């Protein structure tokens, strides 16, 4: 088993005709993901990589019974693309796009919450269930199927953890990049809950970073609801306050959201926290 995406995933690529969209679609197809449609207004009827293009997500869904959508459109068009996918009834929308304004995401998230659609991202690497489906931009070849679920606010940092795990023969159930923005569709707690319910996920790695208090809330959730062991990592121990560290959400403001607080919260609920990324795989190996 796995969470969010699997071999039944029927994927729409919003922005398939763009440079980015096409590049990653090729990689996803090579990985074995079923891409059933692309959406680009005005290009309905064309096809890219042998995938049919539709003008709207609704048309794509009704023609292909797609159930997941991935978004590669520029930031100024991403909110509309997310809303369109939700309105078309797509169950899961993964938004890769970076740089979506926070005010837009507040609105999008408030609307999405009134629908049955789950949003992952924006500004995230996507979701992969190794051996089944890759819906994102992560390098597929570093992954292997296995018992470790990973949830992370970061992209390449997660690849580090994945590569180190695979290298010592420990595979992953599903790896979820939730994104580095202040307002996102799916948070740590949502994914932890899914992993807890997933019988094949025997261990969870949670990779957090400075900013906000989602890690603290996740710690509380772990204490109350999780039997599956969790290993943590928090990036940004040396980050100065008041400065945005790349991700829009990675900022210590008003003294809140430091790595020290987050590490303390996790350790207090029995989640060991790695000192550096290299340690993550070793710790998981010891505890699995």
């Amino acid at each position, binding site marked *: 088993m796995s969470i969010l995406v699997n071999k039944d995933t029927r994927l729409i690529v919003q922005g398939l005709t763009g440079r980015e969209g096409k590049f990653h679609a090729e990689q996803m197809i090579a990985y074995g993901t079923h891409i059933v449609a692309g959406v680009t207004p005005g290009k309905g009827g064309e096809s890219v990589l042998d995938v049919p293009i539709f003008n709207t997500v609704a048309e794509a869904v009704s023609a292909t019974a797609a159930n997941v959508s991935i978004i590669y459109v520029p*930031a100024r068009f991403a909110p509309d693309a997310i809303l369109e996918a939700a309105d078309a009834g797509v169950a899961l929308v993964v938004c890769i796009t970076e740089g979506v*304004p926070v005010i837009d*995401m*507040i609105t999008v998230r408030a609307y999405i919450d009134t629908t049955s659609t789950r949003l992952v991202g924006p500004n995230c690497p996507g979701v992969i269930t190794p051996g089944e489906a890759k819906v994102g*931009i992560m390098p597929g070849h570093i992954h292997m199927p296995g018992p470790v679920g990973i949830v992370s606010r970061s992209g390449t940092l997660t690849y580090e953890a994945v590569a180190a795990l695979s290298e010592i023969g420990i595979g992953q159930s599903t790896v979820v990049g939730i994104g580095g923005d202040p307002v996102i569709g799916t948070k740590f707690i949502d994914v932890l809950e899914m992993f807890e319910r997933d019988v094949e996920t025997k261990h969870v790695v949670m990779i957090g970073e400075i900013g906000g208090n989602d890690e603290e809330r996740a710690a509380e959730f772990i204490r109350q609801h999780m039997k599956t062991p969790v290993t943590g990592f928090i990036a940004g121990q040396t980050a100065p306050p008041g400065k945005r560290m790349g*991700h829009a959400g990675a900022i210590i403001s008003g003294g809140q959201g430091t790595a020290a607080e987050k590490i303390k919260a996790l350790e207090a609920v029995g989640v060991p926290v790695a000192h*550096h*990324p290299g340690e993550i795989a070793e710790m998981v190996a010891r505890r699995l």
Partner: protein
Amino acid sequence: MKLHEYQAKRIFARYGVPIPAGEVANTAAQAREIAQRLGKPAVIKSQVLVGGRGKAGGIKVAKTPDEAETLADQILGMEIKGLKVKRVLVDEAADIQDEIYLGMIVDRERRRVAMMASSEGGVDIEEVAATHPDAIKTIYIDPFLGIKPYQAIAVASALGIPPDQTRAFTKIATGLYRAFIESDADLAEINPLAVTGGGQLLAVDGKMVLDDNALFRHPDLEEMRDLAEEAPAETEARINGLSYVKLDGEIGCMVNGAGLAMATMDIVKHFGGSPANFLDIGGGAKSDKVAAALRIILSDPNVKAVLFNIFGGITRCDEVARGILVALEEVKPAVPMVARLVGTNEAEGRAILAEAQMITATTLADAAQKAVAAAKAR
């Protein structure tokens, strides 16, 4: 992007928030003229993008135009927290009886704009939050409804604002919210919102931080950017689409991905070194971007070693390696460099770098230790 006080207040005024009469001066003579025009006592306020201007002596009251000139002369050129004062705001001095705090931020947990108000204005809200949390009234604004009159009235009631000022307060709260939303702000703050002797409400000081991601739809606000307040390296990073934050250590870091970049800084520290910067070259960076990044890192005289940590996913290691070579041609660095390239096209990347005199590593821990050692050796 941070705005100056005078810029924030002008934006607020556009949304119906009353601000004192005043103008910006670049010279003491101009300050004198403005004070003359105001015809009343004036406040001379340094315009620099840091807090604590008052304590640093950057805000003074002048009773006469003569005094305005003298004080402006003192303040202009002053250094406040490392920033040189290049202009002052000359505002009509307000007859302040009471000070209210009124601010808005995005509350990440609730995914709402939060409006915070306190009758303890004039000091930092963090200070009030620490000492008198009960003095702060917070409301959360529904993104679809916007701020409603009843919410502003509830805040006014909680703050003990008298009925005859409630309408004015509602107008200000509504204006501030609209300014926040329509400017795509991360923060908008009036502190203090003064209650004058005449019972008027007046935004005496203002602060605004804008969401960089939304500047594309606000070319007018983008123009307000004060390049003089930005370190040249930050400007170059921004223009090249790089995320860069200068730190005070000696190991320059070039990384792809924000989380990995932070983790790289952390591991440098973990192994006894000290990072000189945060630098994320982003996904899919090409050689020109890499070259710009290297230039920026080496422009910092404290840098004693450079650590390249690239995990190739979208970013291809060979592209990065080529970028490094281009940059090396240009800047001819005198410091040791440690490169750790793994992932997509890692073999090609390493082959390209073989030409250059670089220390290589495969794990991050190894790379960090080598960089720390190299820096210490100098």
